[in-house]
């Protein structure tokens, strides 16, 4: 599997296909790596604990029923969070080279903006609320 253009990526939020609205995304996984360096060590030592993750998405907003605006707005008040899938290759995970990153997310921030000469944008930060799964075939 070669490197991927961003164009291939698919992102699904609460079962709604979002890659037709998103023009930028960033999935960040942040492991806990507490420092356990001792006096006698040369250089740092760390251990790995749990992790957190978040997904930043932005693009042109679509206000039709069931599209990006309604989906993100509803997620912002969903106490259970919602399933979000990030599929970098856009392909069914038929092989180990087509990972799908699946997790339950909550909405941490949802912004609508517009300016003269531009489009109406959205930018949302979704934060993890479950284990993150990298699913492959």
């Amino acid at each position: 599997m070669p490197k991927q253009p961003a164009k291939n990526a698919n992102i699904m939020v609460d079962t709604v296909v979002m890659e037709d609205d998103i023009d930028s995304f960033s999935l960040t996984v942040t492991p806990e790596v507490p420092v356990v360096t001792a006096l006698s060590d040369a250089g740092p030592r760390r251990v790995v604990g749990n992790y957190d993750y978040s997904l930043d998405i932005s693009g042109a907003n679509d206000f039709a029923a069931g599209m990006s605006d309604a989906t993100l707005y509803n997620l912002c008040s969903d106490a259970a969070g919602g399933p979000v899938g990030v599929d970098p290759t856009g392909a069914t995970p038929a092989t180990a080279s087509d990972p799908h990153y699946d997790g339950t997310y909550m909405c941490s921030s949802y912004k609508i903006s517009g300016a003269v000469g531009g489009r109406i944008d959205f930018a949302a930060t979704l934060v993890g609320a479950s284990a993150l799964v990298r699913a492959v075939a």
Partner: protein
Amino acid sequence: MAKQPAKGMAVYFDEFVFSSYLNSTDQTITPETPVVTSLGDAGPRRLMANYDVSHSDQGFMDTLDDSYDEQLFTAMGEAGDHCLSKLPTGIAEASISYDSLVKISGEPRSAAVGGAILLNFDSQGSGGIVRGVVLRSGAAVVGNGAGQNLGATVAGQELAVMFRVIAVAGGNIIMHIEGGAADPPAVDIAGLTTSTMTVPGCERVSTVAATNAWKRVVTAGTFTSATILVTIGVVMGTG
């Protein structure tokens, strides 16, 4: 419905139309998502709690009497909440409307050589936000507006209506909402009514009683002409 140019976005602050002064507008909803991850968890765990709302709007100063500059300056000194609505696709009936109650947290006026004088304002949420729709807009006439199927609400859900009288002449105007299971909806919904308004203004009212799917605006009064914008929806976080 497709993606939208910013050009069509309408912004209303109280009874004032701010779209003609602004060149940029932002609205941000920020839910609280406290982390409750325990030692035994794999990956994060969070709770969904309350939320905050903030707005940032940038525009050009207009010092005309009773215009943008005076409207914002007056508003900043008022203790009550202000109605702020942002309608991404315009004000046609059934268009999406985000309705906030806000207090102004800043309104810098700035100028530099070669540029226009700017008047921006920031505002912070002071009540639940609504993602609703326009139930009626434009020139008002005495009588019943068209019904819209907005979906039923259950007891406990807060259905909020933002009544705006943008202009009124010749007398007073009173509006209320009627609901029903079918079109035309003709049963008065208690609490969803304005006061007797003789000057432009904005009133937000709500009910937590169950309502039927269809709603309409009924307009009465002695006015000879009036321009209104009525938006309706369920307050976020109430079910």
